[in-house]
């Protein structure tokens, strides 16, 4: 099962040595505007999967961190989806912030490239993987949230993040 997820990893994230094999992510090729579906077109139609161990996520609040690498997706063996909580390690941080590089933090996935089904039958998907850092109680560490957030957070009881959001998708 792990091998299957390796093959489906999104480009840009390299799965770590703990899992053994390393896979060259199928990167997005320059997009063509021909009308026929060529060989290279198939390569950038990516198969998006869960946020799992090793996934690098963008931090979209002002807590100080810039990038976080997921080390554990809570509540699911497969991985985290939109609205789930993950444990991450801060890989890149701003010099003066509430968190430093190397910290282990909790985060809520607010944007996921993998589509999530809504209760009315539709699916939503975002452009990138983004996370908002929270503490163990689920309250955000930062004071601002950038970019759109889904209203799936309301069901997951992350009301504070919704209150800080500038746009709810």
């Amino acid at each position, binding site marked *: 099962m792990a091998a299957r997820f390796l093959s489906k990893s999104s480009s840009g994230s390299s799965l770590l040595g703990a899992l053994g094999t390393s896979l060259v992510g199928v990167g997005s090729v320059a997009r063509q*505007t021909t009308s026929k579906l060529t060989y290279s077109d198939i390569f950038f139609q990516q198969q998006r999967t869960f946020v799992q161990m090793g996934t690098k996520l963008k931090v979209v609040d002002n807590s100080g961190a810039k990038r976080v690498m997921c080390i554990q997706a809570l509540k699911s063996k497969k991985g985290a989806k939109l609205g789930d909580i993950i444990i991450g390690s801060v890989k890149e941080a701003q010099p003066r912030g509430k968190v430093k590089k190397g910290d282990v933090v909790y985060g809520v996935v607010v944007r996921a490239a993998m589509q999530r089904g809504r209760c009315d*039958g539709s699916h939503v998907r975002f452009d990138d993987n983004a996370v908002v850092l929270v503490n163990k109680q689920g309250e955000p560490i930062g004071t601002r949230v950038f970019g*759109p957030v889904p209203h799936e957070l309301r069901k997951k009881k992350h009301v504070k993040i919704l209150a800080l959001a500038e746009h709810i998708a």
Partner: protein
Amino acid sequence: MRLEKCWFCSSTIYPGHGIQFVRNDAKIFRFCRSKCHKNFKMKRNPRKVKWTKAYRRLHGKDMTQDSTFEFERKRNRPQRYDRINTEKVLQAIPKISKVKATREKAHITKRLSVGKINRKKGDRRELEQSISLVKAPSVLKEDATLTLPKQKVTVSYAQTENTPMEE
């Protein structure tokens, strides 16, 4: 429940269908099916893709301006529920769509009628000029019923004056 329009092909998206893509600038793109979604990912411009409504409207293939489109404008103001109003609207919707369909059909037949006339003209010309490929001219001379009646074509005198003299 709201019936949305597909961003790429402009068809209606019924509940339970399609994917919604939210870009980081908070713009939402809705697609009716994966065909439209994949075309969007390929960065194709719907105005250049022949089967979309955007192309057809832009190139005058489909009706663009009509009073029936006014009924379908998106109004963001929520309306208080009024039973009589709702009943009237539900009765009016099939009538409006019928009128719209007939008008669209009329637009298309009007657009295609020009080609029909030209094709007929071309057929007549071909018949007059190349009938010798089918029947021998001597046979045509004997039997008057086999030739088309001669058509009178009025030529304005101004045209004949402007034609240059043949050397």
